[in-house]
């Protein structure tokens, strides 16, 4: 089953959003991905996701940024791709 870990960081000031996501990364597994909701594109987070060999996709809708994060063990990529319309 696909598990979504939603982190709504829109009401948090820097550096709390990046801190929250980095702390949640350990919960990623073969069926869990993170959906981060933010007011702006977190460029520094992207650098750190790359560094940790994690995958991500960002979508911007109505000035809100949705970032989906998963790791190499994630087995439900096709289901996630449907959500992301990749």
């Amino acid at each position, binding site marked *: 089953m696909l598990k979504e870990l939603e982190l709504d960081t829109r009401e948090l000031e820097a*550096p709390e959003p990046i801190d929250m996501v980095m702390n949640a990364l350990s919960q990623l597994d073969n069926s869990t991905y993170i959906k981060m909701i933010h007011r702006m594109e977190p460029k520094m987070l992207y650098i*750190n996701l790359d560094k940790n060999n994690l995958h991500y996709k960002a979508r911007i809708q109505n000035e809100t940024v949705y970032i989906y994060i998963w790791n190499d063990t994630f087995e439900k990529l096709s289901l996630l791709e449907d959500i992301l319309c990749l």
Partner: protein
Amino acid sequence: MFVGLSLDQAPPFRSPLKFFLTAPIFAMIAGIFALFSQTLDIHSSNMIATIHLITIGYMVMIIFGALQQMLPVVAGAVIPKAKLTANITYTSLVVGLLAFSMAFFMYEKILFFTAATFLFFALLYFVSIALYQLAKVANKSYIVIGMIVSLSFFILAFLIGVHLIIAHATSNISELHYSFALIHYHAVFFGFIFILIVSITFQVVPMFWVADAFKQIEQKGIIISTSLVLILYFINILFSLGLDSLYQVIMSILVLYFVLITVKKLRTRRRKLKDISVYFYMTSMIFLALGIVYWLIFSFIELPIEPLAILLGIGFVVSLMNGMLYKIVPFLTWFHLNSKGLFDIPTMRDMIPLSKMQQQYFIHLNSVILLVLGFYFGIDIIIYTAVILFIISNILFFINIYTAAQVYLKREN
């Protein structure tokens, strides 16, 4: 397993920090120069030295430090060989500024030459590197475009400044000398400083104060319009088209629009915790608005020019940089502690005591108000009192940001 934030693309802790800690020291030296000045005439040598110690020693020092820290956050870009670049830039700036100050004190030509050489190298060297890194960013946001435009105007202003100095030194004053001087002033203030502050504001206001993000149309509107209006103004000057008043009105509308939307975002921010950096930002916006209105009136009625310089230079720029550093330095500390994988990191709010920042804010605010009033009414005792307050404010500012830096320095090993 995750062990902390990656430092791969962040500058070493001390690289931007030394720029931030040195800035208030040069502001203090500027204040001391003003105190011992024989005259408060803006064209006197001591006052020229004072002005450049603030513009280069304080403002440029902070801008260069902030750019090192902001590039990864804003653009995912970074200054290559960060430590080496920072050391070369910093050393050249400090040597140049010290030679510059001593040159005005001792009137030695060799010191003027040394100052010009080191400052020329430091400014052009760092700006060229930053500009190149920004130009390489793949998907450029309006914030990145704004920074590129701003640094481009800086290079234009800088080259014209060099031309003006050479013209003075060789007594080769052409008919276009005054026009070039006007282009220089406007390129520095509106092109470089204003557009850079606008771009950074679009990033930091939503980021640090949980305010709504600036809309794309707002970002594009202000950055592109300001740039175009400025370029048209330069054409207007060079070809004597007589459109100066129109330029002033349009530029004022753009600046006031920026003030309006920034104040609105800050007032409607979601987390309304007491925050001295917000006080500084709001104060800065108010002084920018007052300065622009004064600038408009100034072109129709004969008024002293010094209050305009104080409103825009100290009231707007210094206040804003002051407030921004109360966020940037704690963020720098937090980031580097986090990268070490430490879990008991204090929050950014706990790094500098609120009461200390508040005390410094009120001293700064009083110094700006007294400087404006003192220069407007031409009362020396008020000006000297304001200058003393300005020096005290910068001593406290130094102590406060050093307090935040110490949180990291104590745990470094």
